[in-house]
């Protein structure tokens, strides 16, 4: 639910990182935070379990700069990936403007990716949003695992599993190393801004 403040010339946009548990959503935000912490006033907020898993969400706000005279404030959230936390996952999606789906490239996580995408579709439906109507970017994370001899899915398989119908922008990435994290979020923000501009400006 993007909010446009005509008085302060400000647009607030909510971008949510979703995907299977242990897929690297929080790692994405931590990497982005490490890159921008010198120029933002806020800290990254994380509500975690004792075991360091996301319980509710991570939150990172930052200013993107001005577009058409409007200052864009982007609010990045993650949802908990674990299946049992669907109630909180659904809450974080309230008012979402754009999505980054962080898929796990490891072969044994293939079903988890598909389940997480189906769960996202259901949760969006709860808010009367069709997944085809919301800006979304896919990130095929943990590509670095191949270097350690861990079998990973090829990109064609992941595209076929997750992105065959949506044909959304997609990136291979390693959130741990920071590879393609920034391009992923930049793309997500830009297509979200375009969608909002088409609706409102």
């Amino acid at each position, binding site marked *: *639910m*993007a*909010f*446009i*403040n*005509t*008085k302060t010339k400000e647009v*607030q946009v*909510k971008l949510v990182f979703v995907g299977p548990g242990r897929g690297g959503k929080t790692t994405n935000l931590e990497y982005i935070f490490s890159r921008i912490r010198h120029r933002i*006033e*806020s*800290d990254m*907020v994380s*509500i975690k379990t004792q075991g360091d898993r996301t319980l*509710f*969400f991570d*939150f990172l*706000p930052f200013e993107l700069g001005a577009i058409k005279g409007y200052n864009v*404030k982007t*609010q990045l*959230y993650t949802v908990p990936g674990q299946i049992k936390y669907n*109630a*909180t996952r659904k*809450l*974080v999606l*309230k*008012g*979402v*403007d754009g999505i980054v789906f962080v898929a796990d490239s490891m072969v044994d996580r293939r079903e988890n990716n598909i389940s997480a995408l189906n769960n996202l579709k259901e949760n969006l439906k709860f808010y009367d949003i069709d997944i085809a109507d919301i800006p979304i970017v896919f990130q095929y994370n943990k590509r670095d695992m191949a270097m350690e001899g861990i079998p990973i899915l090829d990109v064609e398989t992941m595209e076929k599993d997750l992105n065959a119908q949506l044909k959304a922008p997609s990136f291979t990435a390693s959130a741990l190393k920071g590879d393609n994290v920034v391009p992923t979020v930049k793309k997500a923000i830009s297509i979200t801004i375009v969608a*909002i501009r088409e*609706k*409102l400006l």
Partner: protein
Amino acid sequence: MSYILDQEQLDGLEEALTTDLMTLGIQSVILIDMAGNVIVNLDDGKVRHDVYSLAALAAGNFGAVSAMASIIGEEEFSLLFHKGKSENINFTKIMDDFLLVSIFGNDVSLGYLRLKIDEVINKIKVLIDRTGSS
């Protein structure tokens, strides 16, 4: 859904919140939407909170409490209030999509504040009802 508030609406919201709440001597008042966006942020000039993080947490907290209410068969909990040693925080839902977060010290009576909040909510409803959305 996206929505726009124009200058006249935002001026009206600021004026109502200043007149009805800030003059009570409260520390700050933040009007947010349930997505965690900050619509109006007023303070007494003595504090410097991280308003955007506060808004995200307030929206999440309110959503979680509403979900708990639903699980036990309540439509909602009417009083959402956290008491600290010196500062307190009160949440008030406005229509379905907005939340008023008031932060105040022990020198302000919660009962009187809630009365004033009830008054200002009616003004806020009238102002927000004219919102353009898509």
